[in-house]
């Protein structure tokens, strides 16, 4: 399944018109963002309802670096975006997850949601950040004297980064650390009695996912050429939840498939049914979540494959 998706992704710009390549690049970046949510929710069971705060703050951060410092080098702005996402996730995760007792799902989901809402309000009200209009006309990202503008080059850059991050996440969730995450998701109280430092595990994966969201946010900012408060807010945070639920959480590839499916259907519906397409999309999402709660990925993968195995008992092969 993963190889099929990669092959399609690699060949797409060869057959797509330019404007569709630009749209597909945006979708790839959103896939990267969806991976970050799948890690925290699908693998560690942390309901981060404010994942956009890391995506958006990194986007704003690199936009300010480009606007105020004139730095657009890919070698600086992408690591900067990643670090901004990581730093914000460390602060928010430290507050929400590192108490003496494990935090409840409700506390974490409301805490992250509040963080996202607050960041959105700050961005809207702060003149330095452009207020409601955000920061327009961000200069293009560059490598030496070469400007990386939207189109096939940006597409393959986004695809390459998505592939790297996907492989890194895949390595992580299939490692013994991934087994600890599975334990966290299934029964965190139980694994605390084995000696796992549950809060620390949660904070680590939350911060790692924040870094990925930050990387996605910085790519998104330069691709779109501007940043705006919605990038930080509740709408974006909800959107990423839907991507992962629609595709199937806890599989990585499900997050990618869900993002592509929702964005492709939205694109097609918005062209064909301009007045009622959000309603049709909403009904479609509801149908999938009601009848396929494990997401679209459950059409091709059984439950055992989705849960995965971490050890290799004799007579069994992965």
């Amino acid at each position: 399944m993963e190889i099929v998706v990669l092959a399609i992704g690699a060949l797409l710009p060869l057959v797509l018109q330019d404007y569709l390549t630009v749209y597909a690049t945006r979708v790839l970046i959103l896939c990267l963002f969806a991976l970050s949510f799948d890690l925290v929710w699908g693998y560690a069971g942390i309901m981060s309802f404010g994942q956009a705060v890391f995506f958006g703050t990194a986007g704003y951060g690199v936009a300010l670096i480009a606007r105020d410092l004139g730095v657009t080098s890919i070698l600086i702005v992408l690591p900067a975006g990643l670090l901004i996402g990581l730093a914000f996730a460390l602060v928010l995760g430290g507050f929400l997850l590192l108490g003496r007792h494990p935090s409840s799902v409700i506390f974490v989901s409301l805490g992250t949601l509040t963080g996202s809402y607050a960041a959105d309000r700050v961005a809207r009200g702060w003149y330095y950040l452009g207020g409601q209009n955000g920061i327009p006309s961000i200069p293009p990202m560059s490598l030496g004297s070469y400007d990386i503008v939207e189109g096939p080059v940006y597409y393959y850059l986004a695809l390459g980064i998505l592939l790297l991050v996907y492989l890194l996440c895949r390595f992580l969730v299939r490692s013994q650390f991934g087994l600890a995450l599975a334990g966290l998701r299934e029964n965190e109280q139980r694994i605390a009695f084995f000696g796992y430092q549950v809060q620390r595990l949660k904070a680590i994966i939350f911060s790692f996912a924040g870094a990925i969201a930050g990387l996605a946010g910085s790519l998104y900012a330069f691709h779109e050429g501007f940043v705006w408060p919605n990038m930080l807010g509740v709408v974006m945070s909800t959107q990423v939840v839907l991507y992962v639920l629609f595709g199937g959480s806890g599989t990585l590839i499900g997050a990618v498939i869900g993002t592509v499916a929702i964005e492709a259907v939205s694109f097609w519906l918005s062209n064909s049914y301009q007045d009622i397409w959000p309603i049709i999309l909403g009904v479609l999402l509801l149908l999938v979540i009601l009848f396929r709660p494990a997401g679209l990925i459950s059409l091709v993968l059984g439950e055992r494959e989705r849960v995965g195995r971490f050890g290799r008992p004799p007579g069994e092969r992965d």
Partner: protein
Amino acid sequence: MALLEARGLIKIYGKLTALNGADLTVADNEFHGLIGPNGSGKSTLMKCVAGAEIPTTGTVTFGGRDITQASPAERARAGMSLKFQITSVLPALTLYDNILLALQAQTSLPSLVFSRTRGVLHDRAMAMLEQFRLVDRAADPASALSHGQQQWLEIAMALAPEPRLLLLDEPTGGMSLEERRVTGELLQPIKKRCSLVIVEHDLDFIRDICDRLTVLDQGSVLDCGSVQHIQSSAKVQEVYLRRA
């Protein structure tokens, strides 16, 4: 010096006093049973020892160290392991992964990320499954096991990290007579390796495997001593007859 010493434990929930000055002493390699009528405070005492509850007053020392305020994870790292009253295996994971999860709990983060101990722990995981007669089911999800087998898996998970003290809360709950007999057989060999505190309603079972018993009634220790001493204790007889 005793391995575990709980002194003067009081636990109050609102208006209910669940423990009222209970003591418990367990020596190295001792099998110690906690018995008493329903509501006598057995499970609360177990929770205070394991760290699931913090006592209102009183102290718990383990290996000479005060662990009264320590978290469950800190107690586990000190060598304490618990099997919950309600079976809490991880149903979606295979039996092998359930055991591996318990075994790797004290592995460092970098080693977990790079799966450095997976090979080393493999033999230990298989040995635990073999010991608890579950090796043929290693690749099955834990949800596919019968209730009794899930209890065995959970005891195996609790034993896997080689604790100094194993706490078992009603390990034979819901088991058939044959499963209870087998559970007794499975527990006997661990005596060489660790101490055991067990809460159990089946008095025959507890009499067969324990060296010493503590009898609780209304949150206090009614009597404590060898199995023979408890069997002949007039105070204990009276409480059990009164409740019957």
